[in-house]
């Protein structure tokens, strides 16, 4: 009986070696009798309808609403996690709703949403549920969006991406030390996931949460922007997000608007065309401008679109193609 009872999960770079009755670091993939089981399949802890701008996605069907769901668990353990109550929860301590992939698609249609987001925690840890739902959604003409830290191995990532239309992927810092100390992860797999997603034709937007004293130095921000431009292209939207003291990082202050503005300035100096500021009200930092003629294309306040000038994915003045999925 002692033989073959340990299993190894090869979904993410952690490659957890899981003993009988134990779970991987994500808490939701469990070794039951020598078989790896996902206990959250069909059991989301959260289903809501959000504005797509909240993901944040600014270049994907602006102004539309998106059915958004998550199960508990996460393969990273960021000390600053904003959603730690669900991401760091054990399934046995949580409440979930029975919802098959078919029902998820039905709910998306019922809410009149053109797209479905796998978000809040990390869709990678409920991979099979995400995969089956995304496949069904695609067949039903519903678009799929991932909001993820991108901490996944190459083979399952590529397999999932064939059904994904857009993704907001965190690049938490361009530092392996940061990933190890703050998130209990590593940098390289995330860089690889970003490059693969972009090369697969998925609309990729990147989020960088700026945490005072940890990743807010101008040179750190510049390095990150240079990497994004060189590896994902200058057209990739980059969101600098404001940090709020949460979970195990309550001792640090929120990020100042000055730091966020400076980050945006640096990113634009480095040649990134669409740079945004999030989690804070900022006039210019929420709008989309044409990189060709600088015309204001989309004016936003919070998650609301005040005006949109993009016609057929192009600037109406200079005809420049604007990166995104617009209809």
């Amino acid at each position, binding site marked *: 009986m002692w033989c073959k009872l340990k299993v*190894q999960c090869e979904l993410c770079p952690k490659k957890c070696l899981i003993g009988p009755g134990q779970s991987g670091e994500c808490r939701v993939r469990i070794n039951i009798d020598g078989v790896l089981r996902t*206990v*959250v399949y069909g059991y989301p802890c959260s289903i809501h309808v959000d504005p797509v701008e909240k993901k944040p996605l600014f270049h994907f069907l602006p102004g539309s609403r998106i059915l958004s769901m998550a199960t508990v668990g996460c393969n990273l353990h960021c000390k600053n996690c904003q959603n730690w109550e669900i991401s760091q929860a054990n399934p046995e301590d949580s409440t979930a709703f*029975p919802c098959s992939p078919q029902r998820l698609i039905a709910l998306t249609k019922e809410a009149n949403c053109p797209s479905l987001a796998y978000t809040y925690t990390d869709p990678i840890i409920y991979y099979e549920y995400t995969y089956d739902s995304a496949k069904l959604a695609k067949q039903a003409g519903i678009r799929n969006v991932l909001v993820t830290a991108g901490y996944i191995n190459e083979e399952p990532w590529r397999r999932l991406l064939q059904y994904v239309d857009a993704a907001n992927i965190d690049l938490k810092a361009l530092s392996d030390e940061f990933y190890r100390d703050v998130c209990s992860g590593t940098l390289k797999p995330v860089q690889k996931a970003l490059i693969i997603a972009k090369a697969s034709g998925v609309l990729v937007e990147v989020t960088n949460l700026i945490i005072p004293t940890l990743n807010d130095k101008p040179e750190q921000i510049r390095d990150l922007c240079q990497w994004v431009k060189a590896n994902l292209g200058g057209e990739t939207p980059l969101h600098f997000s404001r940090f709020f003291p949460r979970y195990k990082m309550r001792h640090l202050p929120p990020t100042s608007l000055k730091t966020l503005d400076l980050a945006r300035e640096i990113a634009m100096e480095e040649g990134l065309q669409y740079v945004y500021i999030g989690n804070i009200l900022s006039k210019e930092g929420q709008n989309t401008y044409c990189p060709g003629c600088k015309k204001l294309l989309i004016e936003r306040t919070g998650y609301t679109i005040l005006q949109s000038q993009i016609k057929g994915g192009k600037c109406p003045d200079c005809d420049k193609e604007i990166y995104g999925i617009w209809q």
Partner: protein
Amino acid sequence: MTRRTFIKKVLKTSSVILGYMVWLGGKVLPRKFVKAVPGKKYPGRVEHLRSFTEQSEWSG
């Protein structure tokens, strides 16, 4: 014992040991999975979904 018999014996014994090691390795090494099988039962509390159309309090 001739040299030939001795070499034969050594070869036979080592192949038996090698075969056993391979068999043991297969038993002891963990089975590798990328995809997991859906669990039979949710380990936490299960409730019916009531309202889902409002905006979430969660980030993302």
